[in-house]
């Protein structure tokens, strides 16, 4: 047997150890969205506040965040002040009120600040299904043409905004100006 063959088990072990070590820091609950690069799905649903009919066309024109939320979702409450702050900075945010009681949602928006330019009432979860939503909060970044560019699962906090979303949002805004 050649001498280098003796090193083979060590090399295999190190390779395996490296692979498993990396696995320790992967989050299996974060699924890559199947919808990135695809158009935001068509829908026809009422608005949360006044019941006015909304369609996909209402989301077009500017790059925006589409935030899936619900009053039943504890993490959404954590996220809310961050969204409010972003809205004050001029970030366009649309809401999808996912599987919620509409009266509760209206109350929530009145009691807290309302950071949403418009809010889609998705009581049955049909838009959520077409978006591949499996919980809340989830946030999609769409461009001016309504193509989904990025999806964030979980709470948006300052760090997430700074490191994952801000750059891409700014790039889309700049793209529109040119």
């Amino acid at each position, binding site marked *: 047997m050649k001498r280098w063959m003796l090193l083979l088990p060590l090399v295999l072990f190190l390779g395996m150890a490296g692979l498993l070590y990396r696995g320790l820091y992967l989050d*299996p609950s974060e*699924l890559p*969205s*199947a*919808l990135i690069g695809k158009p935001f799905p068509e829908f026809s649903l009422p608005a949360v506040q006044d019941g006015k009919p909304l369609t996909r066309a209402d989301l077009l024109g500017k790059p925006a965040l589409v935030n899936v939320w619900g009053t039943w979702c504890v993490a959404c409450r954590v996220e809310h002040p961050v969204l409010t702050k972003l809205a004050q900075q001029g970030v366009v945010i649309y809401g999808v009120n996912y599987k919620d009681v509409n009266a509760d949602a209206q109350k929530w928006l009145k009691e807290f600040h309302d950071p949403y330019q418009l809010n889609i009432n998705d009581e049955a*979860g049909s838009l959520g*299904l*077409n*978006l591949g939503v*499996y919980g809340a909060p989830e946030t999609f970044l769409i461009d001016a043409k309504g193509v989904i560019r990025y999806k964030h699962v979980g709470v948006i906090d300052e760090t997430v905004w700074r490191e994952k979303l801000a750059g891409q949002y700014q790039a889309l805004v700049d793209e529109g100006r040119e």
Partner: protein
Amino acid sequence: MTRRDDVAAVRASSRASALLQWGRQLAGAALLALGFAGVAQAAIDAYTFKDEAERARYAELTRELRCPKCQNQDIADSNAPIAADLRKEIYRMLGEGQSNQQIIDFMVDRYGEFVRYKPELNAHTWLLWFGPAGLLLGGAVLIGVIVVRRRRSGREDADVLSDEERQRLAHLLDKNRE
């Protein structure tokens, strides 16, 4: 062997048999629990199907699709709201007469390849499909090679002494006698 050792050995063996007995009981209990778990796990929906074939397809599809929220359950087993939504959607699509492939494609379009417990065979998944069998085969070949080599080298070297070695042996034995 002294008397003490014998007692200890007897004690050890009786302890071992008690342990074995206990192990058997535990295994029996575990099996029983598993049996019950199978009954208790399946989520209950009251759907009526056109015929047995449709019921069977529903069962097959809900077993083959994975719950996006509770990742180690299929959607037939899961009580998560999202799994209930997906079951409802499958039921609806079956009623519309869509094929299994159409339904699976619908889910994959929204939730990604992740939702399939039987992923399609392609460049990304061949390792998943053939890796375990490949490793097993590789291991078997490796063991075969090692065994054959040992046998061969054993026949040549270990059993038969060369003339020179025989002389040395005789010399050593003589020396010992002196």
